[in-house]
């Protein structure tokens, strides 16, 4: 992939010197960023770094102090940004709310025939086709709580896609789901991306999600770096992003980011305790599991 920053004409989303935040407190400063049409971009950074704020600013719901954001050449301002689908973090959803899958998906189309309370035949058929495409056909009349984690994620993906967006924004789509669901979601997103939809997601999972994406933006109050994780996942850049001592291991094309701090902790503990053996074994086991996970995801 060409460096997005050098090709602003092809950019679907462009940030030009954007400073934005809430209640007059900037969360992000001086962001200049270009996301190319057809891109598949991950935003990484520590908690509170402004990952979600960056994503939300694309849809114009974060007050801007300075700068300009455009989507498809049109400046983002008040009101909805056309052609964008938003998938919220599943943890923020009220699962007790009385809504069927169909009712949730149709929310994404509320602006069509906005004064008409009931769904048209066309609406219903669209929902059925989309649910089939996303592999959850036949679940339209279920309550959203009665689904598995992966199915729930697909429902909100369907709500984002019912308006035929060219850009999909996902806030932590893999947080709180199990390993297999995470892989399913990433593969599904890759398929949608292959169909031409630009995808931007936030994630805190460096090894299992970000390292597999073609383009990653490291954020901590500002953009620290962006690029192919093969190139930008270095101790220096990640250290700057996370403010932590991170080591990067490259093994047969697999990138593995490890936190050095626990190892130092282990050393410190080793000096103090004689009965360390047990804990050491456990930690080593965890490491192995991590590497295996990485390989599985990549395959």
């Amino acid at each position, binding site marked *: 992939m060409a460096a997005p920053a050098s090709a602003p004409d092809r950019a679907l989303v462009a940030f030009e010197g954007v400073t934005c935040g809430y209640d007059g407190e900037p969360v992000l400063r001086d962001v200049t960023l270009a996301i190319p049409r057809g891109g598949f971009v991950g935003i990484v950074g520590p908690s509170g770094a402004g990952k979600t704020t960056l994503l*939300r600013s694309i*849809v114009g*719901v974060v007050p801007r102090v300075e700068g300009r954001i455009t989507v498809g050449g049109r400046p983002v301002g008040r*009101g*909805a940004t056309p052609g*964008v689908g*938003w998938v*919220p973090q599943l943890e*923020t*959803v*009220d699962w007790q*709310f*009385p*809504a*069927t899958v169909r*009712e*949730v998906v*149709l*929310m*994404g189309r*509320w*602006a069509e025939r*906005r*004064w*008409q*309370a*009931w769904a048209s035949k066309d609406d219903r058929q669209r929902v059925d086709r989309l649910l089939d495409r996303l592999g959850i056909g036949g679940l339209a009349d279920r*309550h959203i*709580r009665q689904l598995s984690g992966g199915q729930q994620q697909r429902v909100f993906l369907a709500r984002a896609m019912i308006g035929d967006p060219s850009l999909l924004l996902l806030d932590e789509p893999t947080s709180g789901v199990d390993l297999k669901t995470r892989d399913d979601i990433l593969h599904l997103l890759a398929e949608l991306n292959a169909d031409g939809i630009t995808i931007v997601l936030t994630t805190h999972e460096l090894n299992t999600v970000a390292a597999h994406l073609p383009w990653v933006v490291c954020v901590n109050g500002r953009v620290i770096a962006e690029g192919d994780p093969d190139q930008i996942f270095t101790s220096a850049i990640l250290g700057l992003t996370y403010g932590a001592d991170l080591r990067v291991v490259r093994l047969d094309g697999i990138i593995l980011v490890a936190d050095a701090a626990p190892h130092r902790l282990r050393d410190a503990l080793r000096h103090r305790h004689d009965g360390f053996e047990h804990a050491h074994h456990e930690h080593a086991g965890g490491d192995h599991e991590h590497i295996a996970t990485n390989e599985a995801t990549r395959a």
Partner: protein
Amino acid sequence: MSLITEPYAYEFFRQGLLASVLVGALCGMLGVYIILRRMSYIGHGLSHSVFGGAVVGYVASINFYFAAGLWGFLSALAINATARRRRIGADAAIGIITTASFAVGVALISKTRSFTRNFEAALFGNILGVTPTDLVIVAVVTIAVAAFILLFYKPLLFMTFDVEVAPIYGVRVGVVDSLFALAMAATIVASINVVGVTLIAATLVIPSTTARLLTDSFGRMIVISTIIGAVAGVVGMYVSYWLDISSGATIVLLEAAAFLITFVGTTVTRRRQRWTKQWVKPLGSRPDR
């Protein structure tokens, strides 16, 4: 049959019946949004707040509906604005604004003791005193709120479900929220004569909570809640007539009974389903293992 037709001969009963059906349906309908947005306490508080406005209107000889309605609407907006400040919880904001309003009413009444009786009606409802004007107001508010819910069904549903995401999809939350506050204030003012300040919260909350137990679909919940409210209005008026109990209290008690029956019924059904799932199927499939 005369049980039904006899009271119908009186005009006060016919008017009261019509008013209680409309108020029951109106509160049932709007109550769905109120409980799903976790605003039950706002409904309760607003009715008290409206009371303050009504007294002020009375003392200043301004039209009751205008004074109470405006006061209620402004209180609702004030609650919205205060609750958005992060340091103050919505519940505290409601507590401050509505009880202060109510206190204004109480203070004014204690100062001029002459009209205590009128306000007893406002506190506990007096359906027998429903005038043709009151009936017209109730009808207009019911039609207006129903039209609002029908026309704004989609943005209201989206906003009720997820107020953070709705604006991303273009829902103008501020506008819809203000209209909703207006609908709530109007509903409470229109209902005061029928059920009274102290019982309005129940007519907002009970039918919708009962409906929630009966369905997992939002659309169906609104229909069921409206029907429960309307039926409780009709039956409540008759029971009130025959047993000579306050109509507002009768309506609320009937709704509470409906809730209790539904709660027990759905709990038993669910337990039975779970039991069946847990025991009958595994037993049935044992040979396969």
